């Protein structure tokens, strides 16, 4: 059992559990997206302030999950909330995913607005019946009589060195369920604006964070710092404009795609990078518009290749008029179709990085040199 191992038994694994510290170290190494003129905020702090602001705004909002209160969150996203709002509104649960996901869903039926934290979405598989069958479908099955305003959130996707059971991207799983909204933010601005939107949304929202991003700093505009900053769920953002090839990515893969775009720029290739932000609803219109400009599409994700987010985007594009604008086959860059390996060299080969994305983008441009 990884949880016990993390904290008590196996010191060798402690670095994996010490997510925040590890993420901070990575953040120091990672590129900084901050410019001198603006305030910078980490993804973790952006999530934290979104929670705090929404809890101040609406006393029906409460946070429930493992280690969210006294421990300040396994990844410190809920840090300080218990001190500010008390244990009534920041509720530590036993290790009982199916139970507390169901309990939180029932509380949403009764008019509260739970934010249900999973320590990671890998553990939410224990609870997926409650998310899919209870939260997502009850509004429809009751003919609109029952509403379920709940957010399920936590880190998703591959982390570093935690092997197969703790490294998996569930975007495609939840993305296929009618009745759910699914968000996969990348930057601090995304996290703040979309988490606030998710909490205010009257529907169940699955909010997929990424552990590797928690410690990364981003510039935040005055507008994004304000209490009323909300981003629309279902709209993507063009992070970098370009005219030669469209790269669509979500979460951590936006970073990797921007790395690739930097590399491509050195060779005079102007890549447009689209940050998907929302998996469901999917903003296919923005992607199609970009294809009409670039005529090439590369989709990048951290999930497994089969039946994935990239597969769906590809299908929707070739079903649409955008197909006629494609000058090359759609390309997907995904996690390898293998259980995530532990060894560092094998793990590196299992997920997209800048060079492989750049290579594939050039292939889409028929520039294979």
């Amino acid at each position, binding site marked *: 059992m990884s949880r016990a191992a993390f904290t008590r038994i196996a010191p060798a694994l402690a670095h994996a559990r010490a997510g925040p510290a590890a993420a901070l170290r990575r953040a120091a190494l990672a590129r900084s997206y901050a410019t001198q003129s603006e305030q910078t905020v980490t993804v973790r702090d952006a999530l934290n302030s979104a929670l705090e602001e929404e809890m101040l705004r609406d006393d029906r909002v409460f946070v429930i999950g493992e280690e969210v209160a006294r421990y300040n969150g396994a990844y410190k996203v809920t840090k300080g909330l218990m001190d500010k709002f008390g244990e009534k509104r920041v509720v530590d649960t036993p290790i009982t995913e199916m*139970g507390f996901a169901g*309990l939180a869903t029932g509380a949403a039926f*009764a008019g509260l607005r739970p934010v249900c934290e999973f320590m990671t979405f890998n553990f939410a598989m224990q609870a997926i019946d*409650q998310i899919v069958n209870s939260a997502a479908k009850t509004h429809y*099955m*009751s003919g609109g009589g029952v*509403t379920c305003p709940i957010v399920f959130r936590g880190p998703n996707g591959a982390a570093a060195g935690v092997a197969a059971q703790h490294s998996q991207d569930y975007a495609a799983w939840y993305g296929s369920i009618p*009745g759910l909204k699914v968000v996969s933010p990348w930057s601090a601005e995304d996290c703040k604006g979309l988490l606030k939107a998710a909490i205010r949304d*009257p529907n169940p929202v699955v909010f997929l964070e990424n552990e590797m991003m928690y410690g990364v700093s981003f510039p935040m505009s005055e507008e994004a710092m304000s209490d009323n900053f909300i981003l629309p769920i279902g709209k993507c953002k063009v992070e970098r404009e370009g005219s030669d090839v469209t790269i669509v990515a979500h979460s951590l893969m936006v970073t990797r795609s921007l790395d690739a775009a930097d590399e491509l720029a050195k060779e005079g290739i102007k890549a447009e990078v689209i940050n998907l932000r929302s998996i469901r609803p999917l903003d296919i219109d923005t992607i199609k518009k970009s294809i009409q400009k670039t005529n090439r599409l590369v989709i990048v994700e951290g999930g497994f290749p089969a039946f994935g987010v990239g597969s769906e985007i590809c299908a929707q594009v070739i079903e649409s008029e955008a197909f006629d604008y494609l000058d090359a086959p759609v390309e997907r860059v995904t996690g390898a179709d293998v259980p995530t390996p532990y060894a560092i060299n094998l793990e590196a080969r299992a997920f997209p990085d800048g060079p492989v994305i750049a290579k594939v983008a050039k292939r889409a441009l028929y520039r294979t040199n």
Partner: protein
Amino acid sequence: MASLARARTALPRTRKIAPFVRTLQTAADSTQLHQDASHSEPFSVKLHEDSFRGYKTDAPSLDLEVTKDGLLKMYKQMALMRRMEQAADSLYRQKLIRGFCHLTIGQEAISVGMEQALTRQDNIISSYRTHPFAVLRGGTVVSLLGELLGRQCGISKGKGGSMHVFTESFQGGHGIVGAQVPLGAGLAFAAKYQEKPVATYTMYGDGASNQGQVFEAFNMAKLWNLPCVFVCENNKYGMGTSAERSSSNTEYYTRGDKIPGIQANGMDILAVVKAVQHTKDWVVSGNGPILLEFVTYRYGGHSMSDPGTTYRTREEVQRMRSTQDPIRGLQRYLEEWGLASEEELKRFDKDAKAQVDQAVEEAKASPLPEDNELWTDIYNKGSEPSYIRGREREEGHHF
């Protein structure tokens, strides 16, 4: 659970048997008058001494105050519910009801008795054998039957079917065995959070009682002192598997570990009322959760596709119907206590039949849902995605 099969006549009672090993009895008509029955004032009755058993708590007292009006109302409701379920049975056999259909015939004392003892502010959530709750707690027979037929007039607009029926004070109607138990704990959590003095009755069967999430919900409810009554409707069989073949401990009221429990005769509606009054007081007084096991019996199969005779004998079913029927039990009280004549009760039965017959016709006359309903209620109005896809890309719906 041996209690039901042994029934009231089975155990020779000797002084050597301590009270805690006495078996619950499930006669439907063993309550006695405590004072003369009144036509206008409340009067008290005494339940049979083996109506309840307690685990880590005293069993409820055997004294219950009733009124003639209350008893008549329950009689009419039970008669109506049985007629409605019989109509559903018939509509199913005519192939007008699709899919799964689980009937409560034999278990009417529980839904009607609970409704009698609770208010509309209290919550009830249950699994898929729940038609009466939807009708008793805000729905109508037409809307229930309309739902089974998948019509516009259905309580869920024809989108839920037999297993998914809801009202303001009945939160479903859930099709995944056991999943409603954490949901019910959540309703109780919300009541506590909002400081509402209401009880939440979270119901499941002897089959669902072995789901892991049931114990997860018990643990959190006790840990957080939630005002939740976990109700096990022990009808002796989870589908075709008898309680003894599924549960290492068939004393379901004792399975809450530190949560106290009450076992109650689920065939005598007066014992049901008393048990619900007692447990509601328990939870709204801040005592935390409590388990309540109703020992009952379903006359029919698990669902319409189960004849219900491969895993139990016809004689067993026949014995239950003829000796422990909850409606006949209440009928006997009303007659013996001089509150209603046989003719009056027969008239109530006829009224129930007429009401259901008319409801069947009304439900059948209701049209199928509009095609456009396919797309609505997936998301709350005003928060939908701009487009929902149909079977092919030109068939979707734009909001």
